[in-house]
């Protein structure tokens, strides 16, 4: 069940935290920003579409990096703060609280995308021209939503055990690799493709590239195919996360681990 009011309240709460001390966004966006900038340096001699590829992929990685740090930290922060129980005793579903925060944090990941665009435009002289502006915006929003939902899945695990932070760190970089955001998926070994295909970011990045880079369609799906798969994987993860929250909250309440940080 999604409680829109709780989502809105936690979105607002997370934004207040950001504006009170904006420097705290740095740990979440620095990794993808640096990764993308390094990628730009490595691609610089190739020029043209390859650089644009890197810029778009970097934007997706930026959103992902911020989402995973903050979705896991969201519950971790509540544990540390002692507010996890205070939230769980309210009628608001915890999943909605986490979703609101993930949405804000993915949105904040757009800052990373913006930073990457600025570096690309001014430091590397890349002409970031979007072929299909509306398609680009829709794809960006869909990717943002999909990453937020993925963040919820991770957030759910953090309810039951604080050791989940280790899982998140384990999963952050694999998604950088498996999403094929800054290089074609075909460059990855065959055995890794199924993992790539279940990640919404894979399809979101593809839709972004199709709407930006003329003639790009590496998987032969077209824009609507890629967008559709983004939506499909997002819905699947949303359902998984809602179930996970119910199940894992129950586990936490049996084990009595809500207060431990």
């Amino acid at each position, binding site marked *: 069940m999604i409680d829109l009011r709780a989502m809105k309240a936690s979105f607002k709460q997370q934004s207040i935290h950001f504006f009170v*001390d904006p420097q705290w966004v740095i740990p979440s966006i620095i990794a993808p920003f640096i990764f993308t900038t390094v990628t730009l340096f490595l691609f610089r001699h*190739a020029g043209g579409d390859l650089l644009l590829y890197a810029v778009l992929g970097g934007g997706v990685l930026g959103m992902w990096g911020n989402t995973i740090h903050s979705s896991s930290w969201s519950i971790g922060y509540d544990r540390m703060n002692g507010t996890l129980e205070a939230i769980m005793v309210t009628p608001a579903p915890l999943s909605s609280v986490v979703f609101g925060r993930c949405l804000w944090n993915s949105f904040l990941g757009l800052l990373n995308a913006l930073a990457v665009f600025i570096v690309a435009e001014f430091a590397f002289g890349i002409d970031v021209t979007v072929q299909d502006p509306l398609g680009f915006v829709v794809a960006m929003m869909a990717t943002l939503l999909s990453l937020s939902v993925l963040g919820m899945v991770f957030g759910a695990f953090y309810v039951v055990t604080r050791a989940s*932070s*280790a899982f998140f760190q*384990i999963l952050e970089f694999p998604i950088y690799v498996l999403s094929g955001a800054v290089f074609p998926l075909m460059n990855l070994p065959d055995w890794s493709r199924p993992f790539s295909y279940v990640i919404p970011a894979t399809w979101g990045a593809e839709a972004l590239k199709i709407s930006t880079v003329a003639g790009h369609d590496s998987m032969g799906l077209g824009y609507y195919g890629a967008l559709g798969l983004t939506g499909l994987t997002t819905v699947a993860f949303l359902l998984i996360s809602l179930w996970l929250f119910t199940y894992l909250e129950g586990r936490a309440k049996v084990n009595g681990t809500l207060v431990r940080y």
Partner: protein
Amino acid sequence: MLEDITGVKASALVAMRSQFAVVGPVLWLVQILSTALFQMWFFVLVSDFAGDPGATPAYVALGNAVSALTYSAVYGVTMSAGAEKHIGTMATIMGTPTRMFYVFLGKGAYQSIIGMFTVTVSLGFASLFFGVDLSGANLVALAAVLLATCFAMVGFGMVIGSVGVYLRSSMILGSIVLYLGLLLCGVNFPISYLPWWLQPASYVFPLTFGVQAVRDVAAGAGLAEVAPLLAIMLSIGAAFFLMAYALFNYFERLALKRGSLDMF
């Protein structure tokens, strides 16, 4: 002096116990190793796709293997100040006779062990999976270079960590430094690729010298040939430790004046 060593040991022990109180050794190991592996793999894939002869996949893999030291030696040490404030133990520690410098030295000692382990395994990954050829490397020289790099980087981490006694920002600085090395230290591409005005910044980071020294050893250089780089790293490291000692004292006094020990 003896009491200070006791403080160093106690701090290192606490660091180790806290680490394994949250995640067990197996999960922690998986976390450390998968981070190193996937980061390396990411840049290898990018380099392979880019096809730049100046930054081949093996070049990138070796650089990333050495940079695995940063996570423990710099980030791990830097984060300690923020962590102590988080938990609320900073003020308690300050009230003891043990100076903050020695507390962090203990954490640095613990993180050094972790760092050396991680970099050894990362070099193994680089050699096994990503085409790095270490068959001609002088192992004594390699060990010396890695130890010197670790020494200098822990000193660097302590300088940054000292800020955390006074300000909230050490965790942020730690995050920046953690990843900036990938861009500035010749890890993924030669420093000459950077704009001329940015290149001097590379030499502030001990990692720059460490990466170069490891590349030289992998190419067949012996201890004598890397001695100048070793000397630089040891000197820089010593300077960082001295700076850290002074800074910890300074920031301790400032924090006590401002009352920022509990503010996180």
